[in-house]
């Protein structure tokens, strides 16, 4: 037993987090920054943060993740980190030649009160920023929010680069939220299929899924360009996918640049994808082509074909709010039962949304924000489930309790494919179903007695 000390009896905890269902802001900011073309993320604090975040992202994406750090020592912690950041900016532009440096803060630099904008100003005044290069900054103290908040803050900083010219450019901004590079590519494919010119930001496709050629590009071809971000203020509208990840940036563009925004759920599963396509065609004023309807119909077809294996299955899931909301809706639409839902990320509306999605269904959902996986495991010990959906850290529960695990979310440290095969859109829905069915049917094949062991399922 790997989690042998976890008791079934749930005791209230006020101070101790055990097996968290979240991590800290900067890793989200670093991931978002990688979705800017020619950008080197920079962690303003001591070097351990940067090492941890690079390791976490590398282990998940199996790709190089370059990022620099201000490498604070005790002196910088006492006297402020300005000297370190100025030196870092100079060194980075000289040695690595990025087009953009995206700086995020850490617990340390936030607590001592370093002001990024003031330091950026000084760096520009002192000529440390080459012509045509950009500095972006986001505050990401780790004692506020979670990695999701950090992602959102960096995306908002990207939106703040907008320089509206007063003339609309006919494009739609799509803020996809914290999804895989393959998901960002899939969102672009769907938009192209519908015939809408879009700016997707951040966009890690072409950055964290690069080919092996014998050449290492520190700044790969992908990512949204600063020019495109500047032009995002001229878009005819913004679709923000995910209240937690994307809404802040979209609302800022709406308020400051008069780019009307719609905040939608992330397009995981049938209904959320339907709404995404529907809003996209409305904003852009286009007709949805038949090809999209065919993809949709294929997903509906598979749901109907395999309904008997999905119906009534109890699921425990953990992860990030935007993903969980969409996934719960998808599960409910399959007549499955998301009975335990946990996120470490704070947000009052989360529990309410999940309750609403599961309302009037023949099961009760236990949902908790700012909670941890230890609590969820205790719930499972009291009444088990048929499926776990979440990141790799769930494999301990999966093994101890003998429950299949669908790896989905961040981080996935022990399986491949998530970076290449999207789970958004109708095709993503097919893939999620395929993976779920594989788990259920493998389990059935393993557990069925020889007398009822079936060839055709």
């Amino acid at each position, binding site marked *: 037993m790997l989690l042998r000390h976890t008791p079934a009896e749930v005791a209230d905890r006020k101070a*101790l987090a055990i097996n968290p269902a979240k*991590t800290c802001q900067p890793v989200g900011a670093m991931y978002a920054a990688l979705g800017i073309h020619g950008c080197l993320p920079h962690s303003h604090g001591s070097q351990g943060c940067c090492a941890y975040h690079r390791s976490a992202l590398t282990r998940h994406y199996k790709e190089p993740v370059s990022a620099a750090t201000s490498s604070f020592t005790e002196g910088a912690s006492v006297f402020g980190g300005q000297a370190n950041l100025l030196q870092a900016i100079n060194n980075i532009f000289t040695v690595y030649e990025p087009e953009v440096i995206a700086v995020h803060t850490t617990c340390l630099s936030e607590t001592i009160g370093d002001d990024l904008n003031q330091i950026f100003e000084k760096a520009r005044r002192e000529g440390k920023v080459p012509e045509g290069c950009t500095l972006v900054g986001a505050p990401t103290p780790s004692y506020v929010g979670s990695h999701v908040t950090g992602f959102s803050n960096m995306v908002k900083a990207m939106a703040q680069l907008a320089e509206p010219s007063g003339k609309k450019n006919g494009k739609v901004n799509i803020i996809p939220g914290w999804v895989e590079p393959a998901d960002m590519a899939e969102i672009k494919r769907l938009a192209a299929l519908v015939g809408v010119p879009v700016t997707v930001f951040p966009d890690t496709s072409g950055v964290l899924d690069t080919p092996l050629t014998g050449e290492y590009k520190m700044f790969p071809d992908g990512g949204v360009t600063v020019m495109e971000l500047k032009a995002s203020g001229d878009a005819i509208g913004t679709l923000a996918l995910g209240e937690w990840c994307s809404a802040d940036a979209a609302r800022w563009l709406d308020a400051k640049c008069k780019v009307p925004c719609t905040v939608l759920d992330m397009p995981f599963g049938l209904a959320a994808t339907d709404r995404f396509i529907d809003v996209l065609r409305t904003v852009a004023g286009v007709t949805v082509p038949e090809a999209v309807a065919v993809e949709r119909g294929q997903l509906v077809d598979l749901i109907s074909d395999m309904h008997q294996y999905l119906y009534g299955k109890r699921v425990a899931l953990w992860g990030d709010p935007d993903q969980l909301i969409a996934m719960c809706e998808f599960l409910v639409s399959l007549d499955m039962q998301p009975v335990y839902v946990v996120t470490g990320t704070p947000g009052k509306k989360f529990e309410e949304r999940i309750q609403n999605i599961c309302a009037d269904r023949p099961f009760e959902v236990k949902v908790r924000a700012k909670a941890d996986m230890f609590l969820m495991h205790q719930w499972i010990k009291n009444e088990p489930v048929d499926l776990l959906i979440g990141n790799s850290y769930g494999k301990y529960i999966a093994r101890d309790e003998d429950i299949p695990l669908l790896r989905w979310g961040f981080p996935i440290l022990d399986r491949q494919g998530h970076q290449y095969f999207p789970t958004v859109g109708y095709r993503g829905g097919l893939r999620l179903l395929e993976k779920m069915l594989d788990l259920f049917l493998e389990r059935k094949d393993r557990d069925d007695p020889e007398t009822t062991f079936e060839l055709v399922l």
Partner: protein
Amino acid sequence: MAKTSKAVRFDPADIKEELLKKYPPKVARKRAKQIMINEAQESETPPEIVANVRTIPGIITMRGCTYAGCKGVIMGPTRDILNITHGPIGCGFYSWLTRRNQTDAGETGENYMTYCFSTDMQDQDIIFGGEKKLTAAIQEAYDLFHPKGICIFATCPVGLIGDDIHAVARKMKEKLGDCNVFAFSCEGYKGVSQSAGHHIANNQVFTHLVGENQTPPEGEYKINLLGEYNIGGDGFEIDRVLRKCGITNIATFSGNSTYAQFASAQHADLSAVMCHRSINYVADMLETKYGIPWIKVNFIGAEATAKSLRKIGQYFGDKALLDRIEAVIAEEMPEVLAVAADVKTRTQGKTAMLFVGGSRAHHYNELFQEMGMKTLSAGYEFGHRDDYEGREVIPHLTVDADSRNIEEIEVEPDEKLFRARKTPEEIKALEDAGYTFKHYDGLNADMDKGSIIIDDLNQYEAEKLVELLKPDIFCAGIKEKFSIQKLGVPMKQLHSYDSGGPYAGFKGAINFYKEIDRLVNSRVWSYLKAPWQENPELTATFVWE
């Protein structure tokens, strides 16, 4: 086969110049002192290397932080101590890596390695102080798990706001009664690398744990194994070999370790030091306080393992033990040599680069030598000068502000427990016979003349080195792995072993030979160019008839 073996010819001075060319002048001056050409070994004044100095802001370093060294490296592999990270959630989450420090707690034993405990500090805790929350967290952990020991780790903001974690630990230890609670001031900004964290952790283990268990453990030829972390099961293999020889390992610091092992370490008669960097000071303290002499050993490499076993045997000087050690070596070596002979036909003459840890780069050099491979360039992420140049330089090391922050504890012979294991005459007799106590020559001594030694290598230099020297394999950590592989060179992680291992001892050597053979001879590296990219002009001359 991807590449044929090749004789690499290069002028190290040119390489060094090339590495420094792009830096701003100040950075270039500093890095120049950390890049050393290993060529003056025979002269009286070997070249110095600058090590254990601050990382340059903005330069993409391979290093981690003090917290990572303390919580992750030293305390992480102890299964029955419950580790609480006091701070915001991130640090605790990232150090939740569990099974690369393998352990076997049996059916009923305690094991907290698979859990992650944190006080998950919020902004109000930063503003008003986190001591209350920490106190409550310790109580909750105790009520849920009743562990033997609880350790507290400070993260960056904890040091800044001034939470007195040691006072909280003392108070809770007293209150709980049957649980040892102690704390580590291992904020990430302290020191210049994870090495500072090792030091802080070891000092506290020595102060709060070693010597607690008064009952001597059973067994003959008792040793402590210092600086072995059981990555990928290394410690299991070393323990297997030691047991086979009849040697009793009292405590491993700290792979697959337990509370009771640390508490009994003073009962050993010899300390065998693997990772000199992480723990040489503990070996010194064990000697001063309890009278346990120490020797440097290395169980990475089959020859090195045999040599280290003989060295341990010679210390005890007992013929029965020496014979048994020879019998074990004779039994284990044939399989090792058979695999080496086979592998060598494909690895002989190939080249490697090693940038890892604060002793590992040195240890793994042995394994590459056994395969007939040559290390072109090597260095440490968090080594100090003595790890490169040998212990002789220790008296000459300057203590800068960053090192002064790390507590050096002074110990004296323990009134009750000190017992000299050998008389001065016995020590002298051993030394006269060529035996070396508390001796370490460092990495440079084992590196070829003209090889390039680089301290705190960074991403830019790594990429340049690989481009210029085209090694057949590069060894470092996860952050470096994929940028090196994009260049078409296999990269082996030597912190986590890419989920492989063990690589220590005899069976470990066999694993490593096979793994490196697989990597340097993998066909995948020949697929990097598509046929139409290799010979593009053919497309124009192709005519269908």
